[in-house]
């Protein structure tokens, strides 16, 4: 009988620790499927960051490094400059990448560092229990914006793709969403393209994934998926921000 659906080899066969309805599992699977389909697991080095996904080295079968908070792009730079023929990716959340790690991501992008960044944007800090992230939407209630994010007090959410796209370094930047099957399929294509860009030596690639955090949003998994569609897509439009015409 033909197997039509199976666990990717690049994903370790153990239960994940993520909350019910969290989209980290989907994001992990998309990365693992890309590693499998491109046949690059054996030469890939992944960099986990700090946040809920800090220990995704338990889940990815490729070699893995755990990086200090926000520093994954610098660690990835060190690896890639040492092993230019290997494939290097970082997996970072919005607090990690867009707050404490802004210098590292901006300069890795500006250098056109030939790495792939998987960026999870769920508008909140998950692991430390629901604080305001740099991506938290206006009026959004978090444990550190209990009366809602007020731009006078807390400033405005950062659009990472748009910001990095102003640089000349990035080869490919796309924002995708994980809120339904159709979009997950598009996300998969984006992840694969990002790795292909790196394989082709074209330079920096980043895929931002709009993701859920039902636990800290105080929602059911289904309500959380609806929130992406109804609230996040407007502020974070999907699409390709760099490398629209790039063929790989």
């Amino acid at each position, binding site marked *: 009988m033909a197997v039509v659906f199976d666990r990717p080899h690049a994903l370790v066969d153990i239960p994940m620790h993520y909350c019910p309805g969290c989209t980290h599992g989907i994001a992990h699977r998309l990365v693992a499927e890309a590693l499998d389909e491109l046949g690059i697991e054996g030469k890939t080095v992944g960099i986990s960051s700090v946040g809920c996904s800090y220990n995704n080295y338990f889940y990815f079968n490729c*070699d893995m490094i755990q990086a200090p908070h926000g520093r994954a792009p610098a660690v990835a730079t060190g690896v890639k400059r040492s092993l230019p023929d290997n494939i290097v990716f970082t997996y970072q959340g919005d607090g990690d990448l867009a707050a404490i790690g802004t210098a590292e991501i901006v300069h890795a992008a500006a250098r056109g560092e030939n790495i792939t960044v998987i960026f999870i944007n769920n508008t909140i800090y998950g692991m430390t229990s629901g604080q305001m992230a740099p991506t938290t939407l206006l009026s959004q209630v978090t444990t550190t914006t209990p009366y809602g994010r007020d731009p006078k007090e807390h400033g405005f959410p950062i659009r990472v793709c748009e910001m990095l796209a102003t640089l000349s370094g990035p080869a490919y930047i796309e924002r995708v969403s994980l809120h339904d099957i159709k979009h997950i399929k598009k996300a998969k294509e984006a992840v694969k393209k990002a790795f292909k860009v790196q394989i082709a030596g074209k330079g920096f690639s980043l895929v931002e994934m709009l993701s859920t955090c039902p636990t800290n949003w105080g929602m059911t998994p289904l309500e959380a998926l609806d929130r992406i569609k109804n609230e996040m897509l407007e502020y974070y439009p999907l699409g390709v921000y760099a490398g629209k015409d790039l063929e790989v």
Partner: protein
Amino acid sequence: MGEKLLMKGNEVIAEAAIRAGCRHYFGYPITPQTEIAHYMAKKMPKVGGVFLQAESEVAAINMVYGAASAGKRVMTSSSSPGISLKQEGISYASGAQLPAVVVNIMRGGPGLGGIQPSQSDYFQATKGGGHGDYRMIVLAPSSVQEMYELTVDAFNLADTYRMLAMILGDGILGQMMEVVKFRDEEPIVQADKSWATNGHGMKREHNVITSIHLDPAVLEQWNRGLQEKYRIISEKEQRYELYHCDDAEIIIVAYGSVARIVKNVIKVAEEEGIKVGLLRPITLWPFPTKAFEQVIDKPRAFLTVEMSSGQMLEDVMLAVGGRKPVYFTGRMGGMIPQVDDIMAKIREIRAN
């Protein structure tokens, strides 16, 4: 025949690193060590290596973290305020047991301080400037020749023990020129790096480099492993120089460029008929307690001289253990102790 060249201390560190097989250097400009970066920028492309000017010291040490994880010999360098910024990465690399060389050419502090030579980062280097129970091997050269030899040793020690080794110099050593004699071939330790994350090629289990262990029992066990390694290093790797200590009435304890000034003090004291010796720690961690056991019976007192408020002084007092009086004199902020100052202190001790 080894090549003999007149070179600046900072440049010698860079040259020594390349000779030791280091092909990856990540740095950020700061006085008085920037010549290391200049030298690397020029030389690395010619030897097929990587020089990268990072966006910050924080990024530089994390690039070191990445290259060390990939199994490469890698170095970064900075001066005091920049080394403070690297402490996060130093702690992580220590936790993850990564070998690399970190160079600190010290300047006066605290804060932005000044750019003149100092030894006020002794605590930071030897007691752990970052968080957690960790150590670095800390080597303190006292000449340009030693900056060469100890840099090569630092790479070998780092690889042997899978940990960070620091070259702790100061602005005098970094900026001064001396003749250095290079070996034709370096004694390079080929350490096992099967732990490296360099792609498993579908031929082995995946390697993981991490410093996080959320189970406290596991983390304690990990720490016990580190401490056992540090105990072995303390036993095996102490280095020091004993100079004119045999019949010394007073033994001065000093390292780095201050030890050179003390050698002049010894001459001047001899002219006055005072016998002074020098105990010069070369490894600041592990601190050479064995040197003190060798000489403890001889002098009437020890005198510690530093370009700081008296940081190594605490280790000297622990090593002496109350068996002899321990005195201190030093200068701070980039001021250099003069022979006259040290002689005055010696006369004061003798008058007691």
